[in-house]
């Protein structure tokens, strides 16, 4: 499973992080994403920013900064 051909690119990782916000990933996807996040600072930031985007949208629905 940790062979180089299985390594995710950031592009694929980003797609999985996004999908994870809407539906659970399967075990293989979860494992590969975990591996990738462990090694990739940019993708960890992307994940944090995705979660922030969700909080922003919910806050926008409640009050919109007013």
């Amino acid at each position, binding site marked *: 499973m940790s062979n180089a051909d299985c390594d995710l690119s950031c592009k694929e990782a980003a797609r999985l992080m996004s999908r994870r916000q809407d539906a659970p990933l399967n075990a293989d996807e979860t494992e590969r994403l975990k591996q990738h996040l462990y090694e990739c600072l940019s993708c960890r930031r992307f994940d944090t920013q995705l979660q922030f985007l969700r909080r922003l949208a919910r806050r*926008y629905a409640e009050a919109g900064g007013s």
Partner: protein
Amino acid sequence: MGETKNIKPGPAQQAAFAEIESHRPYLMRFALAKLRDGAQAEEVVQEALLAALESIGSFAGQSSLRTWLTSILKFKIIDFQRRVVAERAQFACAPDEDAGADPDWMDRMYDATGHWSPRLAEWTDPDGALEQRQFFEVFERCMDKLPKSTARVFFKREVMGCETEEICKEEGITSSNCWVMLHRARLALRECLDRNWFQGARN
């Protein structure tokens, strides 16, 4: 627009009116996500705002004003849809209008090996941004830049909090199509917020 009252409003009512009115752009987006048609959306928002003004006394302040206005709007939208359905069949699902946009913009965020290029920078004080009205204005402008169908799907999923299955059904798309659209929206919004807000905070 919409001045149907013949009673002279007092200062308190005028303040309430201004307060309610300030949520109109948000309510328009909400209505547009549901109805797709600008004129229809304007109509229901107008009805909702008038209803809100009439019953502002019953607003107990347990939820935010925006939440309260949204619940009124939801009823107005349901009413409206019932009326439309009674008149004629629902208009068919519009085809995705994303095609006209630059199809390669997503690929340009990565290098040839599929890694971020440039690398992503950290966002400084995002929670602080949530306290600022200007930040929400930037967010709105960023949503406006999305292709319409993408913006609608994002709005339903993240702002209205609908489940993807529900959205797929309403939009007449498959769930993988839905995920692609959501992903595009998130990538574009992330980029737009980064460029128009967080980059400035970094410098």
